[in-house]
């Protein structure tokens, strides 16, 4: 049977067919769909873990217990999961253990772009890189067989070019696997006690040597003979672009990109006149090929950042491409009249209400500079115009701890009001230790926690605070307020973000408090878990005085209208189709001009 599948969906299918029993992960674009799809298979225990390190630990435990286990995350998540992955990679596995990372090449939905392939070297783990949906399924399943055969966890690395593409996949049935369970006193898993870390380190190195030889003969690495003039080494989506641009070239298509099959590469290099590596981001393959003493071109012909496209790969070969392979005539230029269509915050989003209160705080604290350290979520959009609320946002849970550091760097923050801004899922992911540290080290910060009861940015996944598991089963909802109180937050303000006065007053008091303050505001997301619709509000045009207060919420439903006041100021109107009726604008309206429609 064949089916059109997203590569992320195909990874899930590969895990299913390979008899995987346990799956864990944390949402992150472009990896999120993998675990969501795995959760549809009843045979696999699946969980959203609170963060990637924990997800990794869960998968490690399951592997030790004798269950094939898979752990999924985006590139930034690998940074978080790296701590436990370094030792387990050197210790080895019981049942197969596979880490799936999908890199957001082009940083479509990430504060950073990162090439996770480099980790393979640090981890001492072999890495497979699928180039389409069929390979995504096949390589995932293969990774489990090889993980057990070579006694090492595998890294399967995707990029958004692969993860978010669809292709035809041939399906196979599931094969159940069983392994001897963990031997609690096995020296293998007891660093220092049973095996010295340097021995583990050397074991890891030796396994890679064996895998290198395996790679020379493995089917996942294949030579596709073509013209002798040009040879191209490529993998992943870069292979597809190169194949499209230069179909007549000779190709060495690598499925296993670490460790590299040196013999195979040397033979391929000697069979062609000019050798190229086509790869995205870091010159990871290129440097290794060069270290083998082989002359190779690549990185000097392509952009370092932002990934590749058909167009950039065509440019790489513009000097050598034969005429028929060059496009006859370049495409027409884009229309200069085109304007961008940026994603917006939703109408009525609780973050817009919080932003407004922060904006007013900035206005009122004339003698103190208001600095807001942000975090990762929908509210990261607050780093950009028109909101311009966040001064900085870079990693999960880092807003609170870096705000604390900022105050210490400023000499306890005299003359400043230092705040942090974080959402619920991110707070539970890595915000708790940050807040604990601020309490412990007597920080004067104000931590805003905006709780919309979902992981909104990635599409509304459940988390430890929602009371639901990934399969939608009832669970224990972790209480953010109780966490704050239990770790010693004394100045805590529970607010309704739509109540402007209450929120503003809470912030005003919090920034004057000498210790850590928490302003915790809760309102459900309008999109997830279910789209909420309430009757829209309307503007009583005759009452609107054109003060512009509501416009500075930057709610997408509030727009200037064509009507003017006597003084020539534009009045406003509310787009009924998109307005959620949250009522926040009616709260900030200075002339009572906004009411419920009807």
């Amino acid at each position, binding site marked *: 049977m*064949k089916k059109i599948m997203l590569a992320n969906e195909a990874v899930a299918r590969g895990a299913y067919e390979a008899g995987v029993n346990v799956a864990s992960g944390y949402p992150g674009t472009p990896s999120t769909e993998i675990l969501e799809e795995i959760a549809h298979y009843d045979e696999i225990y699946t969980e959203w873990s609170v963060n990637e390190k924990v997800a990794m630990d869960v998968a490690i435990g399951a592997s030790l217990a004798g269950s094939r286990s898979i752990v999924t995350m985006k590139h930034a998540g690998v940074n978080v999961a790296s701590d436990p992955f370094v030792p387990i990679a050197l210790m080895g596995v019981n049942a197969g253990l596979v880490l799936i990372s999908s890199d957001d090449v082009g940083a479509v939905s990430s504060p950073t772009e990162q090439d996770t392939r480099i980790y393979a070297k640090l981890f001492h783990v072999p890495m497979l890189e699928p180039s389409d949906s069929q390979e995504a399924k096949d390589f995932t399943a293969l990774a489990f067989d090889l993980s057990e055969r070579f006694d090492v966890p595998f890294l399967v690395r995707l990029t958004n*070019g692969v993860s978010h593409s669809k292709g035809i996949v041939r399906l196979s049935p599931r094969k159940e696997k069983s392994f001897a369970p963990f031997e609690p006193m096995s020296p293998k898993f007891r660093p220092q006690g049973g095996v010295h870390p340097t021995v583990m380190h050397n074991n890891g190195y030796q396994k890679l040597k064996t895998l290198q030889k395996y790679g020379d003969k493995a089917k996942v690495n294949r030579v596709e003979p073509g013209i002798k003039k040009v040879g191209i080494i490529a993998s992943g989506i870069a292979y597809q672009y190169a194949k499209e641009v230069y179909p007549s070239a000779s190709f060495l298509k690598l499925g296993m990109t670490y460790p590299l099959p040196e013999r195979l590469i040397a033979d391929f290099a000697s069979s062609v006149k000019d050798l190229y590596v086509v790869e995205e981001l870091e010159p990871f393959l290129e440097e290794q090929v060069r270290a083998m003493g082989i002359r190779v071109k690549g990185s000097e012909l392509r952009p370092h950042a932002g990934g590749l496209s058909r167009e950039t790969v065509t440019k790489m070969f513009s000097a050598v491409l034969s005429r028929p392979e060059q496009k006859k005539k370049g*495409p*027409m230029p884009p*229309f200069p*009249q085109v*304007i961008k*269509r940026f994603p917006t915050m939703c109408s009525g989003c609780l973050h817009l209400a919080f932003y407004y209160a922060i904006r007013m705080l900035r206005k009122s604290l004339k003698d103190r500079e208001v600095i807001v350290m942000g975090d990762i979520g929908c509210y990261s959009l607050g780093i950009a115009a028109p909101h311009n609320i966040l001064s900085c946002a870079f990693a999960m849970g880092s807003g609170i701890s870096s705000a604390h550091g900022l105050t210490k760097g400023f000499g306890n923050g005299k003359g400043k009001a230092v705040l942090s801004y974080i959402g619920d899922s991110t707070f539970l992911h890595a915000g708790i230790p940050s807040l604990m540290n601020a309490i412990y080290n007597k920080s004067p910060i104000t931590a805003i926690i905006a709780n919309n009861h979902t992981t909104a940015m990635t*599409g509304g996944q459940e988390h430890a605070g929602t009371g639901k598991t990934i399969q939608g089963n009832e669970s224990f909802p972790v209480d953010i307020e109780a966490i704050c109180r239990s770790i010693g937050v004394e100045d805590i303000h529970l607010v309704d973000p739509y109540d402007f006065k209450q929120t503003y007053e809470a912030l005003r008091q919090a920034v004057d408090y000498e210790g850590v303050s928490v302003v915790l505001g809760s309102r459900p997301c309008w999109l997830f878990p279910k789209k909420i619709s309430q009757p829209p509000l309307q503007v009583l045009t005759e009452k609107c005085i054109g003060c512009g207060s509501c416009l500075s919420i930057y709610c997408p439903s509030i727009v200037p209208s064509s009507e003017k006041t006597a003084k020539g100021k534009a009045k406003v109107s509310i787009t009924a189709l998109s307005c959620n009726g949250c009522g926040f604008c009616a709260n900030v309206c200075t002339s009572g001009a906004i009411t419920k429609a009807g």
Partner: protein
Amino acid sequence: MTTKNVLIVGVGGQGVVLASNILSEAAMISGYDVKKNEAHGQSQRSGSVSSHIRYGARVYSPVVGEGEADIILAFEELEALRWAHYLKAGGTIIVNKQRIYPASVISGIDSYPDDPVSLMKDKGIGVISIDGTKMAQQIGNPVVISTLFMGVAAAFLTFTEKAWKTAITTLVPEKHRDLNLKAFAEGRKLATTIPGR
């Protein structure tokens, strides 16, 4: 056969993803290799949405290159203009008569281009403008614009009626199936009124 390149573009919530899934499915049913790439993640926040579909004997890249699209189906006029340079010489762009203003236009920072359809026609691009939004409403639900457009696209692509219908039946939930099959038929009918088709 040489690979066919199709782009379906629009704004979040317009049904671009469903349309591209139906087209890909119809290609697979017709025995082709097919790949599809889409810009995810912005659909629920009023961002641009684009879906690339390529089918043929063997498809490598899932992405349509600039100047390579045989046909572009644009559910919104600004999005049509944004992607028009992906059209190959002699290709056709079918544009829905609808304008959805970006937030930057509403807040007065940007201005929406004057008449995108004329701008494209002036450059000699083969543009067909249809009022799909209105037709979809008449059929009974604005969401059927996806299948309505597939009906129009069917005139330009070589899949059989059966392949299209099987694709729609496979991908559309049962309760909306009949309405969508009706929209597809209406789209086909509309296409017969297009000169040269």
